[in-house]
């Protein structure tokens, strides 16, 4: 087995784990978005590693990377839109103060 592939997959796993921790533990909306960014970064490195070491001739691997990058940008755009709306109405983007959204 290739050392490079395993290294890349372990990096992806670590970024995924750190991202999960961040998304679950943070109370601020922008910090939660940072956690989600790290989760998606973990997916990105896996996609590039699979393309490079397993299927370098199939360019659909790189195409998927572009799609995940698009998802990252969309998450940021919509997340900041929601953050601005929330800040305007309540003066804070703390998620512990957003319990009324459940009701």
């Amino acid at each position, binding site marked *: 087995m290739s050392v490079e592939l395993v290294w*890349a997959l*372990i990096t992806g796993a*670590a970024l995924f784990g750190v991202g999960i921790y961040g998304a679950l533990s943070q109370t601020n909306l*922008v910090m939660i978005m940072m956690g989600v960014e790290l989760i998606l*970064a973990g997916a990105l*490195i896996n996609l590039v590693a699979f393309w490079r*070491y397993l299927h*370098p001739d199939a360019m*659909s691997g790189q195409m998927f990377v572009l799609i995940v990058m698009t998802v990252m940008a969309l998450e940021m755009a*919509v997340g900041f839109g929601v953050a601005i709306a929330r800040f305007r109405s309540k003066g804070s983007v703390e998620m512990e103060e957003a319990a009324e959204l459940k009701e």
Partner: protein
Amino acid sequence: MITGQSIFIGFFGVAAVWFGIVVFRTFSMVRSAIALLFSQTALGAMFLTMQAEFLGVLQIMMMATEMSIMAFFMVMFMMDPGGMGKMEMTHQKRLSLIVGLVSFVGAVAIAVFIDWGPVATTVADTAQQTKALGLELLGRSMLVFEMAGVTILTAMIAATSVAIQPLPLSAIKHKKDRV
């Protein structure tokens, strides 16, 4: 076998994970955004090491812009963006740590114990890769590519419409009367 490529992948991998951890360890939100930028840049450097030059450059450029915007929003929205007051902004820490660790261990087990089959040692040069990617995007995967474009447009409209301040009813009525 340890090669130059594996050493660089390991180095940039450790850097990406370290800066990813720093994002949630620092009290300063601006430092968090910068740490995330370094983490994503290290990831871009990993792409370059793996000979995916186009994606590496794209990753570094995109994340530099994205994280600058994020740092800007951090300063706008946070009560203590510099982290001088050392405010605690976490909850359910133990549960989050356990879920994060379990995810990490599970993903590492999959990475290490699965036989991924034969590994490719060579890859096409950058120019050929970029040409093949262009042909892929405008050929077989065109529908997916177009869908991504339409989704970006939809998200831009949605984000703008959510973010703009709604006018009070009286102001709308006043505008209508003037027309």
